[in-house]
């Protein structure tokens, strides 16, 4: 199924991706964010806070935003 995946870390990424049916928020995070912990990110589904075991649905918008982003 297709979802909109947004990662506001580093250079930023926002595009539709294909994921398997039954993927949870936690599973998507571990697949896409290889060097990070969920506690270091604001995780939103359709712009709302989401539980780690929440099942993703077609058309969902999933956003990962780092909690700590360093200015200069």
């Amino acid at each position, binding site marked *: 199924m297709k979802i909109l995946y947004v990662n*506001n870390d580093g250079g930023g990424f*926002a595009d539709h991706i294909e994921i398997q049916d039954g993927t949870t928020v936690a599973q998507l995070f571990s697949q896409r964010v290889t060097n990070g912990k969920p506690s270091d990110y604001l995780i939103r589904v359709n712009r709302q806070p989401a539980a780690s075991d929440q099942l993703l649905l077609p058309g969902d918008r999933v956003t990962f935003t780092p909690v*700590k*982003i360093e200015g200069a």
Partner: protein
Amino acid sequence: MHRFDRLLWRLAGRLETRLARLDPQTIPEHLDHSSWLAARHLESQLTEISARHWAVALDYLVVRFEFTMRQLQRNLEQLQLSVSSRFSQPELARQRQLYEELQATFDSFPDSTFDLRQQTLTVVTEPITLDEISLGRFQIVLNLEKLGKKATYRVVAESPNFSESRRGVSHPHVLDEVLCEGDAQASLACALRTGRFSDFFQIIVQVLNTYNSHSAYASLSEWESHYTCHACGDSVSEDDSSYCDTCHASTCDHCSTCDHCSTCCPHCGDSACDICIQHCEQCGESACMACLKEVHKACAAVAQTV
């Protein structure tokens, strides 16, 4: 369920038009050489300051060097994005999507407002406290007419608690209402280009809530104290300090002069500290870092005619 907001819908429509007109290649296509030149310049300054045994200035320059190297790294990332974006243009946001995006922004930041006539969207943060220093709430004012250009937004302190050690600093990473985006630069540009305004403001809020002590305009440890000379580290009162227009640092009177120059750049007249006044290797003329490029050009031109 939100009540339909006709004015917000009109704003979304204007944004759709404006975003569609954005040049998809607004990020630089070529490598910005200024970061590389700045790094080389800082390297020579490090050598000079090290020879003078100015430990505090050395620490300061090391931090600036690390910051410059990170900027160089970001420039390379931007160039990579630019090359990639030629082949995969982002999907244009439609009016309905932008309308929902704006609604989401107001849901996340309840005190936010928009002004259709001024073409501004203003988000107000929660009060920000870093290392027990209360900085208050900030307004992030996005100028929608400037999308795709520089200085798209300002960060304005509602009840400023300015740093005592550096003028115009209302937050460790905000100078004169301009946020130094640091690690957020690329993701902010990406969010704006694709009309993800709620993400855009959220990223800025995260930056405002993060203190990077290694690269701040003013450190929180000196926020409510006298100035510290950025060259020698001595504590100095405001009356006995000089302000460098180049690096926005304060120096004591001793460090604002050197054997070869006055307190001002002889070319542009800006005040400059010993760290920022440099000498041309060919003619020995002194100048601030900005004017030194012109001095080098003039020397090169003379060398060619000889």
